[in-house]
């Protein structure tokens, strides 16, 4: 078995207009910058994909990564917990102009909804958001006298994630706190594409050290020395470069 994909362009080639896309990372930590930029390259060359729904904790920072994807007009809808950042201008302007939709989800509920999507759990109850505006319209139930809100699973057509090691079976490890949403999104997408800092042969990852088992991963593409959103933003980078 060999899940390696030749290059970034091929890795994102199948994502259609209107796709629901989970993109890993928390801020810049664990964000698959090169996969996102490959998607922008494709859009600039072909006009696709557009009308995307993007699921990420945030809504981009500066003018690279998800912010650049939004800036190109490729994103119709964001599902996230915190659409704010050091430089949130791209999302903010489109949102206030009514040109991009937002579904705001508490962070822990977002994580659990994604896990539920991956685990075949269509709905679950959580105390989070009970009695708040974010619970409006959602079913409520009491258990042992305490009120809970019913939340639904989240699934995606594709997940674009960033990992550290990836073997030919798609087993993945993550670097430090860059783990965050990446393993959950890998579970919840129909097709998960991981950019890995180092591709290794089968047996190159200790079976006990695997964080995402390969069953959740459909393609891996090696991106050695990946870019870090925070460093790009501190250098006032933009994608594509002008």
């Amino acid at each position, binding site marked *: 078995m060999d899940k390696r994909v030749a290059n970034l362009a091929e890795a994102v080639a199948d994502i259609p207009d209107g796709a629901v896309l989970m993109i890993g990372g928390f801020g810049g930590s664990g964000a698959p910058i090169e996969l996102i930029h490959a998607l922008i390259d494709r859009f600039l060359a072909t006009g696709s994909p557009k009308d995307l729904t993007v699921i990420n904790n945030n809504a981009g920072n500066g003018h690279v990564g998800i912010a650049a994807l939004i800036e190109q007009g490729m994103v119709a809808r964001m599902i996230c917990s915190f659409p704010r950042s050091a430089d949130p201008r791209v999302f903010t302007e489109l949102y206030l102009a009514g040109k991009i939709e937002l579904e705001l989800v508490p962070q822990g509920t977002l994580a659990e909804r994604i896990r539920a999507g991956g685990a075949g759990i269509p709905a679950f109850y959580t105390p989070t958001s009970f009695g708040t505006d974010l619970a409006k319209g959602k079913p409520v139930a009491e258990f042992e006298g305490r009120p809970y809100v019913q939340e639904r699973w989240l699934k995606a057509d594709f997940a674009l994630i960033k990992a550290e090691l990836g073997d030919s079976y798609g087993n993945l490890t993550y670097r430090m706190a860059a783990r965050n949403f990446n393993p959950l999104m890998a579970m919840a997408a129909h097709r998960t594409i991981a950019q890995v800092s180092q591709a290794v042969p089968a047996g190159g*990852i200790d079976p006990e050290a695997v964080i995402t*088992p390969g069953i959740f991963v459909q393609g891996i593409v090696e991106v050695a020395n990946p870019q870090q959103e925070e460093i790009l933003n501190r250098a006032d980078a933009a994608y594509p470069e002008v």
Partner: protein
Amino acid sequence: MSEKLSNAQIAWRAAQDIEDGAYVNLGIGFPEMVAKFQPPGREAVFHTENGVLGFGQAPAPGTEDWDLINAGKKAITLKPGAAFFHHADSFAMVRGGHLDVAILGAYQVAQNGDLANWSTGPKGVPAVGGAMDLVHGAKRVAVITDHVTKDGKPKLLESCTLPLTGVGCVTRIYTSLAVIDVADGHFVLREKLPSISLKDLQALTGATLHLDGPVADLIVPEI
């Protein structure tokens, strides 16, 4: 009934339908035998409920490591590219639809795909294990079984009489006499042993066998 396939031959036939690269769970007992018959040039990755993906054959006697077992509590070995995970992640793979194929044994299968394979009734100690999970989520849920019970009664029925494992879950049945699909609430005969007539096969089956195109000969090597 004179000729029928051995368990090994049923397992061989089921193995032929496992595509290259498939993620597969084999129920404990008889279904475990399917792993032996992977067609050359194809590689399946085997999942076991207790948290292993990518295991291989049994170790040589005396070399077992009892921390490395399958769902049937038998010692296993690892292939390169294996992974360990906990039980909740393991059943996320099952329930979440990530397995391509689950192959299970059966007491009874109904024409709508209902499966009974965990309980023969109220007496004794009930035990279900992962069977009720495995019938949900795998893209294909196949059954391997003798075509009839030990005393010759049909196991493929209009509806199950034993406690159900799952409702409408079975997609294909490999028996000692035939290969039968479940489609739109009825059995569709796909293959049968050349030596048995359709009429005799129907007599051993508790629900109508529908035809949907030609019925192929069920040809299996001596094993």
